[in-house]
């Protein structure tokens, strides 16, 4: 599984490009963090990578093929979107939410069968939520919801998941739970593109970091070399320093 954006640009309003010349690639086992200020184009980039938006220039390639030419259902079996958690209108159970991920495997008039239930079972197991299968999604914690949405992507069959701020609204413990699931899955070969507002999460969990600055992927590389006070100042327009903990863990703090 290889997902690659080449020189992508996108404008919602003609002449005002949100993305200009954006390139990144993600392969098996990668956890790529996209860092950037509010309005820097992170969500737009994810939309282009999943095929919701068609880049006006440049191209997104899925295993070498133009993403826009891949039929939607086939695309959905290979890459999945993990949205920010939200309060759903209807109180579906966790199992029902994950089961919806089987939609690209089922015809218009089909209902899910045993194979689909098995896929849900495996997906819930992969994020350690098996015991919550029959619980209403509305009665789960934020961290459990985020993991259920990851499981939905897995049930889709996706080998690459695009996550939009998976740590938003979560306490530190739930954040750690979510990223533990991400790390476990990427060690199994799943790949992740994670839009994040937390440079510290990138230091902890990324194997590659992309800085999106004014719609351009200016700096990218392993977290230890690219997450520096200079790039952080460039990205967020304020001063940071990087401190080192007793066990060698590095952390970003505002200066």
């Amino acid at each position, binding site marked *: 599984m290889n997902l690659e954006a080449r020189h992508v640009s996108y404008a919602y309003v003609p002449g005002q490009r949100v993305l200009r010349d954006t390139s990144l690639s993600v392969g098996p086992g990668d956890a790529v963090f996209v860092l950037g200020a509010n309005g820097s184009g992170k969500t737009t980039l994810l939309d282009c990578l999943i095929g*919701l938006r068609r880049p006006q220039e440049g191209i997104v390639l899925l295993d070498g093929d133009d993403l826009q030419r891949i039929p*939607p259902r086939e695309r959905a079996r290979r890459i*999945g979107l993990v949205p920010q958690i939200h309060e759903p209108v209807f109180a*579906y159970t966790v199992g029902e939410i994950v089961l919806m991920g089987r939609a690209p495997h089922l015809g218009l*008039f089909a209902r899910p069968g045993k194979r689909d239930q098995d896929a849900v079972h495996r997906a819930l197991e992969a994020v350690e939520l098996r015991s919550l299968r029959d619980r209403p999604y509305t009665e789960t914690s934020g961290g459990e919801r985020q993991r259920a949405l990851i499981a939905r992507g897995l049930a889709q069959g996706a080998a690459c998941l695009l996550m939009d701020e998976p740590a938003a609204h979560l306490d530190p413990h739930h954040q750690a739970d979510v990223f533990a699931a991400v790390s476990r899955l990427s060690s199994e070969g799943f790949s992740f593109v994670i839009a994040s507002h937390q440079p510290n999460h990138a230091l902890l969990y990324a194997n590659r970091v992309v800085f999106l600055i004014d719609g351009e992927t200016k700096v990218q590389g392993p977290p230890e070399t690219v997450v520096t006070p200079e790039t952080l100042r460039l990205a967020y327009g304020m001063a940071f320093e990087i401190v080192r903990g007793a066990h060698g863990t590095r952390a970003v703090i505002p200066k």
Partner: protein
Amino acid sequence: MTNSRGRTTWLLVLLLPLAFLSAILVGRYGIRVEETFRALFGLDGVSEVFRALVLRVRLPRALAAACIGANLAVSGAAFQGLFRNPLVDSRILGVSSGAAFGAAVALLISAGTVGLQALAFVFALLAVGLVCLIGLCFGSSPLVLVIGGILISALFNALLGLVKYVADPLSSLPAITYWLLGGLSQARWETIGPLLAVTGGGLVFFHVIRWRLNVLSLSDSEATAMGIRIRGLRAFVITAGTILIASSVAVAGMIGWIGLVVPHVARAWVGPDHGRMIPVSAALGAITVLTLDAIARTAMASEIPLGILTGLIGVPAFFILFLQFLQSRGEVR
């Protein structure tokens, strides 16, 4: 949980035929069980008048009641999922306002029962068609469709007012007013053919597509990322739902609340999964209208318009459901 769902299914399987039979049994001529069955199965020992009453009046009326109840409940349930809003009902896209205007025009020009049904049906479709046109021009998001529905409803309500204003206050105006109250007194074999055909097709459509409605109730971007062609699916559901509602309104006039309250009850019983709640909504809707129509025919010396009954029962039912909804969100104690 699974057990109580199983019980619900059995309860409905028992209740639906029971409600249907009761609707045929009760009426102005008293409950005559044996004679009714003799009439139904073509046996001797029953007067021709009573046989005709059962076969040509009560049977088609009960069928119409069941169909209309199922149609309104199923399309209400589908629309609630599609608009991701449990407070939506089948009137959201202006279908009732269009039908009311069409029917009023038919009564104004004395177009007869067939003409009335045809005009009500056509204007119901026209109203929703206009809403969808607005949707197409402005991105077809649920919000645009809802606002379009409000606008087109208001337009047809104004036109309806115009028709009432010019209508003869001694003949056509009371006819319009009475029709708008809703009721099944016009249901005969000659008038319910289209309703039966449309109901059959529409309910089969919603039955086979019901699991997909779950995905439709997610956000547009989630559903699209899952490979669903959401605009196409939405168009299918709106078209099928509109035809079901329009054919019902054309026969029975304005019958509110069924499309709003019944799906809520179904959801409370078997959960929000459309795979289960669509069939339950259909059965429950049919049972409700069959029962209410039986009450409408027999409770008072003259028939009570069905729309009044659904309102009298629907409003308190909705109030209770709405309180529960707020409680589930922690907004009232």
